[in-house]
């Protein structure tokens, strides 16, 4: 794989002026040596369920520093694409991250290769505390002797993540009683301590208040400058505010790709979203 992607360079994103504390810097920049080829490269990916083709020959390249949004009508195959990349459903073609082929490997192995995801419905460990959730997320490489001992103190990365996602005061709260938005942040925090350098987020701001959306957007922007982030989202306002680039899917295919402005003016996208006749009339 010598042909490096030609899409957006990190220059596309401006350095964040707001509070990137030392904790955030330390956490977000963890272990860059492991992921020197930090980009996701999907080629000809296809997922079929019985006779139905849910994802049809998708090509997708996402680099670090390019906060990519994945949009499309219901049933476009966005979540299925993420499922395929994370090993939840079988797929043909290729999906590579950090020079490693992901397809055909076990879910937990893909996760160890630095690929993390969230789900449409926040799935945290409801009976465990915020701290325990993060500690487990940070521990996939622990050996038996560490596992069999009691947790003492808090790993540094967990401490930093608590600060970054703003759940420090709730560290000993049972995750089940957190507000919806806080659960989503906890999930993002878990991805960070898990050392996921490819983060696939499935509708992270669904059900959030406006203030929570803004906080999440800023958080994603900060994370996106250091890691490869793909966000599946329906909220167009959120998309316009925070997306660096957009991939539009429709009926299992990639319909369009580019900046927000490019995609918004793409007649094919307009047609899918607004209905053919209406737009044709307007443009005529």
């Amino acid at each position, binding site marked *: 794989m010598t042909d490096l992607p030609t899409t957006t360079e990190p220059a596309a994103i401006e350095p964040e002026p707001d509070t990137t504390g030392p904790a955030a810097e330390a956490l977000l920049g963890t272990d860059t040596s492991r992921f020197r080829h930090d980009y996701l490269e999907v080629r000809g990916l296809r997922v079929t369920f019985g006779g139905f083709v849910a994802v049809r020959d998708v090509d997708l390249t996402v680099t670090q520093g390019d906060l990519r949004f994945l949009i499309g009508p219901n049933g476009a195959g966005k979540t299925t694409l993420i499922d395929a990349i994370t090993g939840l459903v079988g797929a043909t073609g290729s999906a590579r991250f950090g020079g490693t082929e992901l397809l055909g490997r076990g879910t937990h192995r893909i996760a160890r290769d630095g690929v993390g995801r969230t789900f449409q419905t926040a799935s945290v460990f409801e009976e465990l505390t915020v701290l325990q959730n993060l500690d*487990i997320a940070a521990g996939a490489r622990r050996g038996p002797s560490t596992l069999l001992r009691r947790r003492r103190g808090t790993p540094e990365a967990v401490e930093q993540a608590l600060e970054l996602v703003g759940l420090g005061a709730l560290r000993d709260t049972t995750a089940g009683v957190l507000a919806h938005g806080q659960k989503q942040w906890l999930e993002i925090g878990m991805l960070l301590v898990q050392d996921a350098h490819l983060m696939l987020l499935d509708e992270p701001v669904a059900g959030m208040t406006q203030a929570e959306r803004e906080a999440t957007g800023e958080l994603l922007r900060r994370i996106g400058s250091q890691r490869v982030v793909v966000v599946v989202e329906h909220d167009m306002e959120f998309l316009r505010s925070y997306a660096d680039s957009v991939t539009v899917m429709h009926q299992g295919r990639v319909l369009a790709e580019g900046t927000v402005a490019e995609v918004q003016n793409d007649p094919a996208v307009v047609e899918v979203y607004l209905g053919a006749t209406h737009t044709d009339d307007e443009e005529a």
Partner: protein
Amino acid sequence: MTGMTDRLHTLLAPGRTRALAGFALAAVLLFAVAPVLLSPFRLSLLAKFLCLAMVAVGIGLAWGRGGLLTLGQGVYFGLGAYLMAMHLKLADAGPGGVPDFMSLYGTGEVPWWWEPMRSPAATVLLIVLVPAALAGLLGWAVFTRRVRGAYFAILSQALAAAFAILLIGQQQTTGGTNGLNGFRAFFGYDLTDPVNQRMLYLIAAGVLLLMVLVARQLMVSRFGELLVAVRDAEDRVRFLGYNPAAVKTVAYVVAAVMAAVGGALFVPIVGIISPADVGVVPSIGFLVGVAIGGRATLLGPVLGSIAVSWAQTSISEQFPSGWIYFQGALFIVVIAFLPGGLASLVRRRRRRDSAASPPAPELEERPA
């Protein structure tokens, strides 16, 4: 100095003091009070209950914390018990001797797979290794194929049924329906001597306490937290880079070994092991005490199991055929109205108490 105070804090942390106090109390009751108060007959009964409670400790870990509905622990209990019984029969027969029932029903020759049990050391080793290996292989095969919930329960129950049927069918080598019985000595000690019977009780009490300690360490460790996470959201754990099958297999193996050790001690204490002690019905019986006591707690399974065994004995003494109805009713009532078991009553009360006074801040344990 600060190291000292830190260590003191660690020792005095609320959870740990309570555990230490509870452990000391249990030790006093088991080692000092019970042998004085109970007649040799009752003490021997209690020893039997303690052996059954060992199975319960393992089930509490695997089912309560790991969500594995182990409906077939009779298999591992039986493996431990039969291995021990084989050794006792061979030891009774003397060096090179043949157990009595083999001359009676079989060829009068000791089969090759009995031979390792002539050695006491090998027997003790195999009592741990055989169940661990079987549970490890089976657990790995089942959990990596993502068999879970009711399917796992049915599978483990079918295994218990198959095991009992296998034992019944091999009368020449396993004693069939009669099982193995009539042991005279335990590692050279005469089993009819009351002093030795009391010793067996003390061994059972010590082993049970040790198992509770092991279970506690596993529950408070990171592994314990991970096990709960696997129980509640297995897929999420997988996406964090863990293999949940490995976590579950470890819990299953630990539960199997505990059941096997309980079975091995059951044999000299009760004096018989038969297919009726290892099949489907006793396997469900192991579960009842755990459910009633509170499966997800440390002591709930032990206390529940002992209480149910005790109730079974006393009710059977009064109404010989009444127990099975009582057991069924108890099970239904607990599952329907108190899914967390009796332990949830204690916890609810404790929460009400602590709501009145502000909760004590949890002391962070720092390395000294």
